[in-house]
């Protein structure tokens, strides 16, 4: 019987090994371990054995049964794994095909530049001030030390609505309005907005464009404060390595007036096509608020001083992104706008 048992075991193990699929393996299970299988038969036949042999034989049968069962289970796992693998193989896709596009839009490049500038100055404690795009001549010119008859306020250069009302030619009237409203309080503002000039549209001119100006008024605001503020701004906006330089200039509403250059962000100062071989790029105009402007707004110029600066987001965007034609900003070609969809850091 022992011999028979051993033979049965070998036979079963062989069949398990040979079973090609889960189904056939299940047949083997039924055949050998099922209620009508030979092992069950053997167990049933135990009764015929002498009582003292029964435990020994019982143990032997159990060993065989466990061996077969273990083998079966192992094979079953293997087959199942194979089945899964086959299924996965069939499910394989071409991962190089493009993904489902996520529908996303993005900022206009000018908004991108304006918000960057706003955010820097907000972090420095500035408020964002806005004002009307259609302005009174008083705020646009007179309050800014450009009295009537001043050559800079030619009818030919501005879009007038009436003799006293025009489309603002700069965002400076927001400064004048803010000063008039704050009535002698210290001021720290940044003023972005659309402005208009009577220019024919071409690659470098636009009758509508954007400006962002800043104004700080307080007791004993110094020109060194202007320089320090602008230097920080240049680094934040154009890179840590940026140097600035101030050059004397002229604006009716500031005295002294300066223009600020930054070291070229493309070549670092060695000279290239962006900086026209000078190593420097003109970025903004600024200066100390003219005493007449302070006085007209009700600030005592012997006590209060201030600085102001202004720049053109179009110019900055053109320099930064290499845009060659200002009209791109207002054509709203999807192929243009959609390029400004990613971070620059």
């Amino acid at each position, binding site marked *: 019987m022992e011999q028979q048992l051993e033979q049965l075991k070998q036979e079963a193990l062989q069949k398990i090994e040979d079973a090609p699929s889960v189904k056939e393996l299940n047949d083997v299970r039924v055949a050998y371990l099922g209620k009508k299988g030979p092992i069950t038969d053997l167990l049933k036949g135990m009764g015929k054995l002498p009582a003292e042999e029964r435990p020994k034989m019982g143990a032997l049968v159990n060993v065989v049964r466990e061996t077969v069962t273990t083998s079966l289970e192992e094979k079953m796992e293997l087959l199942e794994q194979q089945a899964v693998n086959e299924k996965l193989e069939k499910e394989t896709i071409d991962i190089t095909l493009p993904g489902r596009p996520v529908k996303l839009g993005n900022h206009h490049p000018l908004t991108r530049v304006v918000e960057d500038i706003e955010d820097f100055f907000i972090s420095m*404690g500035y408020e964002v001030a806005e004002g009307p795009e259609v302005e009174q001549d008083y705020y646009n010119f007179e309050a800014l030390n450009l009295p009537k008859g001043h*050559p800079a306020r030619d009818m030919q250069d501005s879009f007038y609505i009436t003799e006293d*009302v025009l489309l603002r030619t700069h965002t400076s009237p927001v400064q004048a309005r803010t000063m008039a409203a704050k009535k002698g309080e210290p001021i720290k503002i940044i003023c972005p907005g659309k402005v208009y000039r009577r220019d024919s549209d071409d690659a470098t001119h636009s009758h509508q464009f954007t400006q962002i100006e800043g104004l700080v008024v307080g007791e004993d605001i110094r020109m060194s404060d202007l*320089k320090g503020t602008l230097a920080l701004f240049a680094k934040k906006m154009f890179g840590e390595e940026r140097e600035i330089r101030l050059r004397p200039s002229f604006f009716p509403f500031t005295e002294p007036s300066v223009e600020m250059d930054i070291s070229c962000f493309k070549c670092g100062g060695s000279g290239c096509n962006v900086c026209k071989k000078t190593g420097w790029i003109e970025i903004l105009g600024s200066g100390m608020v003219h005493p007449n402007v302070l006085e007209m707004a009700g600030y005592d110029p012997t006590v209060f001083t201030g600085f102001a600066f202004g720049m053109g987001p179009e110019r900055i965007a053109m320099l930064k992104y290499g845009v060659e034609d200002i009209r791109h900003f207002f054509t709203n070609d999807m192929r243009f706008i959609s390029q400004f969809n990613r971070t620059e850091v």
Partner: protein
Amino acid sequence: MYVSTKWLENYVDTKGIAPADLAEKITRAGIEVDTIIDRSEGLTNIVVGHVESCEKHPEADKLNICQVNVGEETVQIICGAPNVAAGQNIIAALPGAKLPGGMKIKKAKLRGEVSNGMICSLQELGVEGKTVAKAYAEGIYVLPADAKPGTDALSLLGLDDVILEFDLTPNRADALSMLGVAYEVGAILSQDVKLPKIEYTASNEKAEDFLKLKVEAKEDNPMYIAKVVKNVKVAESPLWLQNYLMAAGVRPHNNVVDITNFVLLEYGQPLHAFDYDRLATKEIVVRHAVEGEKITTLDDVERTLRAGQLVITNGKEPVALAGVMGGANSEVYDGTTTVVIESAYFAPASVRKTSKDVGLRSDASTRLEKGVDPNRVAEAAERAAQLLSELAGGEVLAGSVQFDELNKESVRIILSPDYVNRRLGMKIPMDEMVSILERLQIPVEAANGQLIVDAPTRRQDLRIKEDLIEEIARLYGYDEIPMTLPIGESVPGGLSSFQEKRRLVRRYLESAGLYQAITYSLTSRAESQSFALETAPVTELLMPMSEDRSVLRQSLLPHLLEATTYNVARRIDTVSLYETGSVFLGTQEDGLPKEVGHVAAVITGKWVNHAWQQENKKVDFFVMKGIIEGLMDTLGLTEKVTYTKATHDGLHPGRTADILLNGEVVGVLGQLHPSEQKKRDLKETYVTEINLALLLAESAEALVYEQVPRYPSMSRDIALVVSKDEAAGSLMEIIQEAGGKLLKDVTVFDLYEGDKVDEGMKSLAFSLTYFDADRTLTDEEVVTRHDKVLAALKEKSGAVLRG
């Protein structure tokens, strides 16, 4: 302003400083040098030649065979210029010579004849054609008879020069003269300025015996001085004078005119020369023109004058447009023998107005309209008299004829060094400040710790303390200013709630698939009110540049649609744009239109487009509505916003809705009317425009956390058959109302219109979710509630469950 460094050298010593370095120093000190023009760049091997003989080329009509003495030898040069002739001294470019533009001269054969070089025009040496004297404008340049063959022609022509082109700011009119530039450069280099010495011998005859002067328009002409010079021989100017004029961009004419131009450039004081005999009346009267009066100016244009324009007359008729241009009737010509030199101060505003009215800007008017130095008016006239005597053989009559009520006082400014330093944030010592002002030749005295400054009249831009602070700072060097930040109490910066929410709106719309556009505020009258949510009288420009940009917009949509059409025309089928910006309505009390912030959007094309999986879906009303619903949710306004069916001009009558906030219309959404689509070359296009100011003025509901459900909810789906006209919205309202507190949510999940329902009917399916936050609902409760909902539907809308 073109500044010849060679000419400048007469007044200030710049030796040893490379022109590029000088330009950099000038720029950093305050006057921007735009370009540096090296006039000899590329020019080599160019000498004086003497044409010994000139014969026609046997094989070519237009060519001449010239034997030219070029110093050590005589060579044959073929020349095609019409004005070449034997006996002339000319400019010869010899083999090996280089000309501007890279042209190289080589020995060559022209129609069988050897040519050992080229006889040059000034243009061929890089001189601008418009500055070449008319006599030589069309041919070769003829050098003076005393030029020595074989010597360097470039130095003779003053082309061994570097020109600095100044880009002057309006305040620095003082630098519109060589002397003004000399003061500036002298200050920068700490050099003295050498002024011209004016010496000549005057005649015994007196100018006042020859000429009478009457100034009737005293305010517009507070100073007028006339000198009379007799026995003038009008001729070509000496070469050095012509060279200076050409370097400055001025065309030489004859010695008299050239002298007036030279002095204008040297002193910044415009002069005019009249032919005394052609004046005819021995009288000059300065007055305002009579309306309709006529004058033919030097450019041979007859101009009709307007009342108030300042004119110089001979007592009868105008002979010059004061400060702008002379008249042809009194022009100096070859036969002129007696010259009247005018030097005057005309009021800047008067000159500016006349110059603008007649559309003439001259070297004279640009200087006069900025205000010339009152103290140089007389000096400039004397300088011209001197040069006429030296260079034109003139006899200057004693004295001058003049009218003078001009204020020539300088402005006194007193300031303390502490004031300067406090404004600059610096510590410049007082003696350093004094030294800077002295370098600028600005009279200054230091007394009792104060600087007492008398701003010279040549510097009209120096009026107040701040002007002097700038002078001190720019010459001390802006690089020396330290970098600090404002001290004092600091306030938190930030955006206003409107600005913050506007950023939120932009970010939301972009995350919803829309690109931000920026369009023009100015539009045509026809488009100004199209699609406007609210119309009011339009704001119109007084002098538009074109009809297309003549009126301010009252809706953002026309230009957004224009941008959409632009894109579609370039085969970009799917366009999704939005804009935030102002519209302009009516006129308020302050004379300004009411500016209202709006947001608008346009979508067209495919909203879902995943080509290789064959998934694409056109835009429709509900894409746009979904975007708006998402926006309202983002703004926390969902509960306050409703949509009602509406009609609007330009929009599809069956596919348009008003957007209401708390029951008030704040916007519109809909499909563009098919005829409007056709007009704009667009396919199905959906638009929206919302009054952003009203929308953002509404506060969001407080955001309070709602407990995450701990008990299960139960769903019941119903399919209703209702009339086609029945709005899903009203059915949902009925369901909401009847469902009460237990009804957590209701959504539409199917819409069917077709054969399986009766004509005129549709089937709408809703999914209802019942839920109680505090317990699990029983089936019975839900059934009871659900039955109530069904009953209400049947009662209020006749809806029956679909069988």
